[in-house]
């Protein structure tokens, strides 16, 4: 509960399959997935599981159904038969959470990609799930849109929502507490971002590369510059180097 997990791996490594197994969009051939103790193989649990595990997909245009932003956010609630008054309240509350309340009456197709994904996230949040699976939810967005969505993820993590982020973008993986790297359907690496990004050989085999900051830090450490190996952000590296320079 409340974890922020990031799933990395090349195309075809099983990332999306993993994501879809979590909310009973797919049923495991062998093994079991328990959500809050509910077995996804039992079809009587399907709706209860999907209410607990929300999904946000890659292409915002494929998941928007309403002709107005608030209508779109209400879609899942209508299907659950939530009373109107509560529905309005949940729509408002969750559009506020993603910073899109002032767009409530806008037609979604006029929004930017980042705004559309925020609306999609609000729609999932309105169902009050415990976890959200995001399957490459930022890969089609421009840098500004990516930043918008990442800010929301950091905020949701602080609020205690469990997040499972499937991505190709290493910079994005730095947001998570725990990383899992899949290759050919198996977990090949898992641990904190520091632990996983330290395994450059295994990453290379999976056609992945640690983020630039981590690689520069590693290169400096190899040249016996005394940097700690926990550095993940540009600001940290710059600060550490300035401290070193002062103290030498």
């Amino acid at each position, binding site marked *: 509960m409340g974890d922020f997990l990031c799933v990395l791996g090349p195309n075809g490594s099983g990332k999306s399959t993993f994501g879809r197994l979590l909310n009973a969009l797919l049923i495991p051939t062998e093994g079991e997935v328990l959500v809050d103790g509910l077995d996804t193989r039992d079809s009587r649990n399907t709706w209860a599981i999907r209410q607990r595990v929300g999904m946000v997909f890659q292409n915002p245009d494929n998941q928007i159904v309403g002709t107005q932003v608030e209508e779109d956010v209400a879609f899942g609630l209508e299907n659950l038969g939530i009373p109107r008054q509560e529905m309005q309240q949940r729509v408002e509350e969750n559009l506020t959470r993603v910073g899109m309340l002032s767009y409530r009456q806008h037609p979604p197709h006029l929004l930017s990609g980042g705004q559309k994904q925020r609306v999609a996230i609000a729609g999932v949040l309105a169902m009050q799930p415990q976890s959200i699976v995001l399957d490459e939810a930022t890969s089609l967005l421009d840098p500004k849109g990516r930043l918008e969505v990442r800010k929301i993820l950091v905020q949701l993590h602080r609020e205690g929502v469990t997040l499972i982020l499937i991505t190709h973008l290493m910079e994005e993986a730095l947001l998570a507490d725990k990383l899992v790297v899949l290759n050919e359907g198996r977990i090949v690496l898992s641990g904190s971002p520091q632990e996983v990004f330290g395994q450059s050989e295994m990453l290379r085999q999976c056609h992945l590369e640690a983020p630039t*900051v981590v690689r520069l830090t590693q290169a*400096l450490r190899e040249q016996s510059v005394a940097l700690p190996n926990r550095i993940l952000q540009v600001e940290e590296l710059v600060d550490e180097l300035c401290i070193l320079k002062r103290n030498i």
Partner: protein
Amino acid sequence: MHIEAKHLTYVYGPGLPWEKRALSDVSFSIESGEFIGLIGETGSGKSTLVQILNGLLRPTEGTILLDGSDISDRKVNLHRIRAQVGLVFQFPEQQLFAETVSEDVAFGPKNLGVPKEEIGKRVDEALLKVGLLPQSLRDRSPFTLSGGEKRLVSIAGVLAMRPKVLILDEVTAGLDPKGKKEILARIQLLHRVEKATIILVSHDMDEIALLSQRILILKEGKLILEGSPVEIFTRAQDVRSAGLDLPTLPRILSDLRCRGFQLPTAIFEIGEAARWIRKELFRAAV
């Protein structure tokens, strides 16, 4: 092919309530065989500009000269222009339609009236240029290929028209790191071996920094910066004012320089950056 744009302006829906000025007074020139990186925020006019370059849109004002001939002239045969300036749209694999790869790649040259006997040759040549083996792919359905391969087939479809200029709009978007690397390596080869003039439109600053010889930055329809990657990425302030960020490595180095490190500006490789930083730390010790 030499490209010269003079005072290009483009207005969508002139006179309408939603009139939008997408480009205003943009001038630049591109030498034959150059590799240009075109960047700017969403809505900065990049797509409008590339559509003008291959004659899909006519500029509201200004002229565009390809090897000296003005394509904004209404009398110009636009088919010929589009054969010379190949445009690969975003997510080009969505435009694949034919039953076989060879039919799909042949579509462009066929429309240009290339004789039948030559089309087969062009198809094979185009597939080879993007690193795909004609004999194993020719008769496959394009829809059975991987995402990266589909994209390569779509690029081959444009190359089969033998364009002199190749414009690629967000060509690596949505691909995994391996697919990205493969496509970029192919594009680099097209530039080096085939001497193609290339215009790469991208949001990925690392990609732009790595490949471009010269960078053009658009902001709100205006060309605000132009120069080599070194010139551009040492002007961190200007780049940020265009709503863009520096690639990670130049960003770290720029931040370090601001904090008193003496580092050269032309570093785009991690090992080299590490050596310079170490040297600078060591210098401080002496």
